[in-house]
């Protein structure tokens, strides 16, 4: 029996194609003509932005997608800043944000003709953490945090290294013990980093003519688990994560109380929801409104997001649900934007 090379190649490629198909190739069950058939809302929704908000949006999308299979949806979470960059370049129709849009970002958006509506969907608290063994530190105020973690603290290897700066700032809890300080926290691409810089550092730094950022010399980690791990294994560690993640690992690390001027407050669902815990932040989604007329799927999606079923995913993802007044405000903002 003779077969030409060509025939053999066809068999070879064919076999691999079959192999591919068996695994469920992307084409499985789709028919090009189905595209023209009327059905549920069709279209595509691309979401980018905050990695903090991503779990909420991903859960909402999933719930929405099971009822609307015709809508192509993708969610990614590179970080709030990167998300706005893509949003304002017109590449995404929704972006997750763990802080309000910056003026510079808003400019980019308007320059590109992108119109949007801002919707608050949840609260998150930043939790400053140390090891449970670190009995010396129980509460810190903004000046302490600035002295320990701000841009001027670069090179401080021990807590005591920050004493001079803390004294200059008038920090309440200085002097600190003369023990090594090992900092692990989210990296600069993350919204949690931005929020920390905005909430804790910004005011003091601007007053002192320093950059609104943290010290660079810490271990930046994308994985919150690693942060908690590092913090728990080093008895004199320091760092911060989102409140949701702290709750899951409350047994491994110790939350430091924060004094925002009105005494030390422990982070909890209650203290965040009632506004008494200073390091809380609102979480947002930004929706591009230019497309609403053409992209009915987008309207349906945001409708679903703000519905009781959709917004329930906030707690599911471990964040603090909005009080009714704020939720209603978001719903009416969306209603006026979409009608």
């Amino acid at each position: 029996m003779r077969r030409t090379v060509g025939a053999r190649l066809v068999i070879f490629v064919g076999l691999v194609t079959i192999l591919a198909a068996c695994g469920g190739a992307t084409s499985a069950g789709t028919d090009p003509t189905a595209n023209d058939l009327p059905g549920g809302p069709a279209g595509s929704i691309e979401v980018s932005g905050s990695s903090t908000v991503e779990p909420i949006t991903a859960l909402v999308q999933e719930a929405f997608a099971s009822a609307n299979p015709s809508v192509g949806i993708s969610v990614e979470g590179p970080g709030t800043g990167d998300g706005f960059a893509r949003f304002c370049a017109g590449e995404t129709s929704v972006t997750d944000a763990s802080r309000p849009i910056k003026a510079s970002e808003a400019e980019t958006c308007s320059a590109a003709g992108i119109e949007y509506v801002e919707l608050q969907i949840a609260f998150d608290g930043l939790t400053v953490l140390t090891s449970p063994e670190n009995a010396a530190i129980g509460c810190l105020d903004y000046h302490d945090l600035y002295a320990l973690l701000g841009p001027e603290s670069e090179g401080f290897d021990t807590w005591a290294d920050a004493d001079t700066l803390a004294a200059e700032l008038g920090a309440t809890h200085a002097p600190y013990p003369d023990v090594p300080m090992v900092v692990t926290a989210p990296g600069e691409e993350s919204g949690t980093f931005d929020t920390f810089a905005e909430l804790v550092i910004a005011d003091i730094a601007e007053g002192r003519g320093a950059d609104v950022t943290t010290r660079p010399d810490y271990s930046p980690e994308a994985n919150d688990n690693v942060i908690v791990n590092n913090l728990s294994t080093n008895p004199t560690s320091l760092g911060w994560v989102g409140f949701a993640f702290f709750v899951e690992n409350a047994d491994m690390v110790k939350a430091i109380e924060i004094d925002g001027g009105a005494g030390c407050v422990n982070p909890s669902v209650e203290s965040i929801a009632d506004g008494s815990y200073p390091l809380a932040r609102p979480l947002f989604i930004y929706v591009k409104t230019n497309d609403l007329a053409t992209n009915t799927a987008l309207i349906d999606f945001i409708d679903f997001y703000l519905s009781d079923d959709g917004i329930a995913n906030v707690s599911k993802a471990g964040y603090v649900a909005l009080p009714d007044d704020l939720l209603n405000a978001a719903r009416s903002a969306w209603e006026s934007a979409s009608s």
Partner: protein
Amino acid sequence: MISRTAPTPDLVQAALAGRRFRLVDSLLAGGLLLSLFSSLLVLITLLADTLRTAAPVFADRGLVFVTAPLSADPAKAGVLQGIQGSLALTLFVMLIGFPLGVSAAIYLEEYATDGGFTRFITANVRNLAGVPSVVYGILGLALFVNLAGGLTNGRTIVSGGLTLTVLVLPIMIITTSEALRSVPATVREASYGVGATKWETIRHHVLPIALPTILTGTVLTVARAFGESAPLLLAGALVTNFFQPSADASVVQLITDERYTALPLVVFNWARQPQEEFVQLTAAAVVVLLVLLVSVNATTILLRDRFEMKSLR
């Protein structure tokens, strides 16, 4: 004249006796075997640890894990889109990379005269094969996602597939070249001797003999593309917990319009997730990845054996 005579046998016996146990030799052989066994040990540890960690996932959910889509909810998360994306990318590599690689190799081995140009291309190909895959990712980002974004539609499977194709092409050329080089010159001479042209010689004699080796090399290369992740990070694959291509999209739209991800990137993403459950899910995804790779390799061996039986040797 002086000659030698045989000394007494026991003197000879003593001279011929060596130590029965040679310390240096035994130590060396033992050490060398140990180094080989440590690779085996690492492999076993890796597999055992992965299987142990992944076991609960398969115990609880069985194969549903393979057919379930990505999810932010660890209890529901599966690897479906990862598998689909990886297979689609692999197909891309096969359909474009294979013919291109084999053609280039045929040119270099059969047609090109050994001049400066040929040597330049050959050296070039060899060096390209050693360029880190992440650099190909940068190329994919600059070329296929950004520059040719109008054609590839940016961050689509087209961009990812082309990036991987370009990545494996040098390896494909090298393995094919080696296969062609191993075909004895007598085969070619015999074919020319009966009046065949170059292409006829290649088509009817050289390629059939080289094919089993070429296919083995090819599928090993494809398997490599299957497990590759760094370039896809740059070439627009999603690193995410959830995405869903539109169920209405045609095949063409799926390839050119929709976002994509790949199985190794699902592993990468899950390995970075903070929740404890994702440690198990990551291990389970690794298991799926390795099983698929093993089946690709097993297919190679089957194919090669089939072809080898029919070929001349």
